[in-house]
């Protein structure tokens, strides 16, 4: 193996506690090396130190942080290097792409100038020369000047385009190493896929080394040569992607795959950081240090069990490996033959904010008692607006919502029959209220009775009874979402609307909250309407799926059918964009075309199909005639001119790939 480009060894970082307590240890002896041109994925749940490792590597640790150990870049020691030298290296040697494309860009400078800034600094280029180079770099990341002028400002771009600008800034000085910190987390799934492809392609073309940081193992598995798994400031396993994914060795890695864990991480003692949550914990895990063990397939694992010999798997009883390929989730499906009475009927519902654009456009569906309907779509597709109208937080422009045959907007008594779980568990709980008061808010009962109901609801979502006396800030994201679910359950509503209930949570916590929601469906007569952009989430809990594009439902039917063999071109694009735990998959599968979403706009102004601008299969008819939703057999309805004949369980003619 060639000399590593970036070699981090025994890196520890401590952060002073501002309140005067003991310094917190963020990184604890991290070892990581990246060879020239190699792509390394750094995975772990939030707070495990992934970003801190990256910031340490480019010398951007927060104030109050102290680093010890060694960080060598091309043989040069960076730790303790003068700031002036680091400035030279940043951008040219090591560049970084950040998670939030909006906050990483300067809102009052045109994008071309932001890209040119680094060029002028590093290469001393003149204004015009730098502008020309910036234009070329922007074109390279898919923003050619003819389509997206370099004179535009960040707010005039979509989220995906902004992230491309961030990438262009990072790439401008042709760095030897690119660090991408959750570059796709803030983006829609279809855009995520394009972005990952772009980063991987460019790094391959330029022979640039890549460190891809993500909480999502699937993302990393697809685009990286090697994977390093971090937990609580320690790299617990690293090795070739195929080996780590194919046979995860460390119990935490397997937990990431199975995505189910006992509880939140606790304060760390001397031994293995994962010991408190590890199902295979042994006595010495609590006390002894963590030596690296080398496994035959070129992997290194920090686990006493695996030390020195091949990983022993605990017979697969505790862990279900590789849960994420979507079809594996489909165990949650229930037959829809026993349709109950209609609970919710939505008829030609339309909401217009800025004419002539309808956020929700003549949407109709019904939801039976006990059914779980998932509405899937990218951000801006109108799914949240739809949810807000159903719970009567927003007034329809036209059309009707009927809950139990009545209009919830005008009938306030109906409100107890429908409750909502919001996306952001940090915004949906009043920080000044105690949990007991939050959960009991919808109840209008005497104090003692209310306390009893609150205790019951907290127990139902798996929280301790003493949670009621604490404030929300004492809880983690997952626990907060449980509190929000408890509040939704407390009126014993007929319908619970959950708007992206897990998308703000870590992957392992997601699985727990999903399992909870899944279990709650069992209660007789309780219906769920789940809004999500994530097919893996939908596959786990939905009976029925409705796919939305630009305010319209384009495909509707049993989850099994829609997810296993999506028919509408957009559903197929969505399904193809789901990252899979399959190293190298990126290079073969067909992905969504790189047509930007803005192409949809013109299509929606005209009479045709909303998706025509982006659809790889669009024909002339799609641009003029809006497709109506028609049944296609197997209980499904699709709004697409290209899907007209009933297709029993197969892919329609002439449209290859893309199915799950």
């Amino acid at each position, binding site marked *: 193996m060639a000399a590593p480009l970036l070699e981090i060894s025994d890196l520890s970082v401590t952060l002073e506690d501002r309140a005067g307590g003991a310094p917190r240890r963020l990184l604890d002896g991290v070892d990581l090396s990246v060879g020239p041109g190699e792509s390394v994925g750094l995975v772990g749940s939030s707070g495990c130190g992934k970003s801190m490792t990256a910031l340490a590597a480019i010398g951007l640790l927060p104030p109050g942080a102290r680093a010890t150990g060694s960080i060598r870049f091309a043989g040069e020691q960076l730790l303790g290097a003068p700031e002036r030298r680091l400035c030279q290296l940043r951008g040219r040697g090591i560049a970084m792409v950040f998670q939030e494309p909006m906050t990483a860009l300067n809102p009052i400078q045109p994008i071309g100038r932001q890209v040119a800034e680094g060029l002028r600094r590093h290469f001393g280029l003149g204004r015009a020369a730098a502008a020309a180079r910036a234009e070329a770099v922007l074109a390279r990341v898919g923003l050619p000047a003819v389509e997206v002028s370099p004179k535009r400002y960040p707010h005039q771009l979509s989220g995906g385009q902004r992230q491309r600008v961030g990438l262009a800034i990072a790439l401008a000085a042709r760095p030897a190493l690119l660090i991408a910190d959750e570059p796709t987390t803030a983006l829609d799934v279809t855009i995520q896929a394009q972005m990952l492809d772009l980063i991987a392609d460019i790094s391959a073309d330029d022979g640039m080394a890549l460190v891809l940081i993500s909480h999502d193992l699937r993302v990393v598995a697809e685009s990286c040569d090697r994977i390093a798994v971090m937990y609580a400031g320690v790299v617990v396993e690293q090795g070739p992607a195929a080996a780590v994914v194919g046979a995860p060795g460390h119990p935490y890695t397997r937990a990431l795959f199975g995505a189910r864990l006992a509880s939140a991480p606790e304060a760390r003692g001397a031994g293995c950081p994962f010991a408190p949550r590890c199902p295979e914990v042994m006595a010495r895990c609590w006390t002894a240090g963590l030596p690296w063990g080398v496994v035959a397939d070129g992997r290194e694992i920090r686990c006493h069990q695996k030390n020195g010999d091949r990983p022993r798997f605990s017979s697969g009883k505790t862990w279900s490996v590789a849960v994420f390929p979507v079809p594996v989730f489909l165990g949650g499906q229930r037959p829809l033959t026993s349709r109950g009475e209609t609970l919710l009927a939505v008829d030609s519902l339309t909401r217009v904010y800025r004419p002539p654009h309808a956020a929700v456009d003549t949407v109709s569906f019904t939801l039976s008692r006990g059914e779980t309907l998932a509405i899937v779509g990218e951000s801006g597709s109108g799914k949240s607006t739809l949810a807000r109208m159903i719970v009567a*937080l927003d007034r329809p422009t036209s059309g009707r919502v009927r809950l139990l045959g009545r209009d919830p907007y005008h009938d306030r008594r109906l409100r107890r029959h429908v409750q*909502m779980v919001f*996306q952001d568990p940090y915004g*949906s709980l009043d*920080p*000044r*209220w105690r949990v007991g008061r939050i959960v009991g808010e*919808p109840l209008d009962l005497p104090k003692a009775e209310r306390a009893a109901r609150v205790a019951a609801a907290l127990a139902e979502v798996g929280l301790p009874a003493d949670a009621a006396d604490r404030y929300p800030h004492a809880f983690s994201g997952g626990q907060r979402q449980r509190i929000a679910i408890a*509040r939704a359950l407390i009126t014993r509503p007929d319908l619970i609307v959950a708007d992206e209930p897990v998308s703000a949570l870590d992957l392992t916590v997601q699985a727990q909250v999903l399992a909870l929601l899944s279990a709650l469906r069992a209660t007789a007569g309780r219906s769920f309407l789940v809004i999500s952009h994530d097919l893996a989430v939908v596959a786990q809990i939905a009976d029925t799926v409705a796919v939305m594009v630009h305010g319209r439902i384009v495909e509707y039917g049993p989850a099994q059918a829609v997810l296993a063999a999506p028919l509408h071109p957009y559903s197929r694009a969505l399904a193809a964009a789901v990252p899979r735990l399959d190293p190298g998959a990126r290079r073969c599968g067909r992905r969504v075309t790189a047509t930007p979403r803005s192409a949809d706009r013109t299509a929606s102004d005209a009479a045709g199909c909303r998706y025509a601008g982006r659809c790889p299969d669009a024909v002339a008819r799609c641009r003029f005639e809006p497709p109506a939703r028609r049944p296609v057999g197997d209980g499904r309805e699709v709004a697409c001119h290209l899907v007209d004949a009933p297709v029993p369980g197969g892919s329609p003619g002439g449209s290859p790939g893309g199915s799950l």
Partner: protein
Amino acid sequence: MSGVVRRALRSPAILIGGTLAGATLVATLVSLVWTPWPATAIDIAAKLQGPSAAHLLGTDPFGRDVLSMLMVGARTSVVVALVAVALGAGVGVPLGLAAAAIGGLIDDLISRLADFVFAFPVLLSAVMVTAVLGPGAVNAIIAIGLFNIPVFARVARAGALAIRQRDFIAAARLAGKGEAAIAYQHILPNIAALLVVQVTIQFALAILAEASLSYLGLGVQPPAPSWGKMLNDAQTYMFLQPWLAVFPGLAIALTVLGINLLGDGLSDLLDPQLRRAV
């Protein structure tokens, strides 16, 4: 909560500001039961003295004890400022919350009215109001309080609009709560820190405004002492007895400085608190 107290004790702004403002408050309270001399007792024989053991801060042209007058004058300042700010907050905050909650025409009406009042320079307008209503402590309170209303209305409205975006407001609505209950139970506690800081700022301004009005003879009327009036009286004797101007001037400056420091410290203290809660 103990963490907040501990951090407050480590903040120099809060410590110094609290000491200065606290001294004025103590002087006010003590003046209710005791002053070194009766504040209005005239002793022409002892007029225009400098600081001495008998009169710590000297005497004025009528031989009155300056320290005693300052203590009673502090009472006037504090009471006028306190009631004026309470008036401003008491009317302004509900107006701001209502504007945010109802929106539309009511919001426009309240906001434009606030803009309108804002457009007048505060002190000049207060002078105008007391000129119309006649001089006196009550009218000074009305004049100063009136111009505090739009300040609090604006702060409350802006804070409420930000809080109302949050999902827990939507959740409260789904729980069947009306706008008034949401404003009182959810929004008010969440903008309390904002309002506390604003109260300290307005309090300092109100003390300054009261001093200015009495300097112009539009505040409390003689023989009741007040800081502004003492300054005015001192002007005539500037060259005979400079101390006369120094002490009331210092009292005003240090009190206002103290309250401003306290406000700064509180906003530093409560801001991250608020941010962490968010």
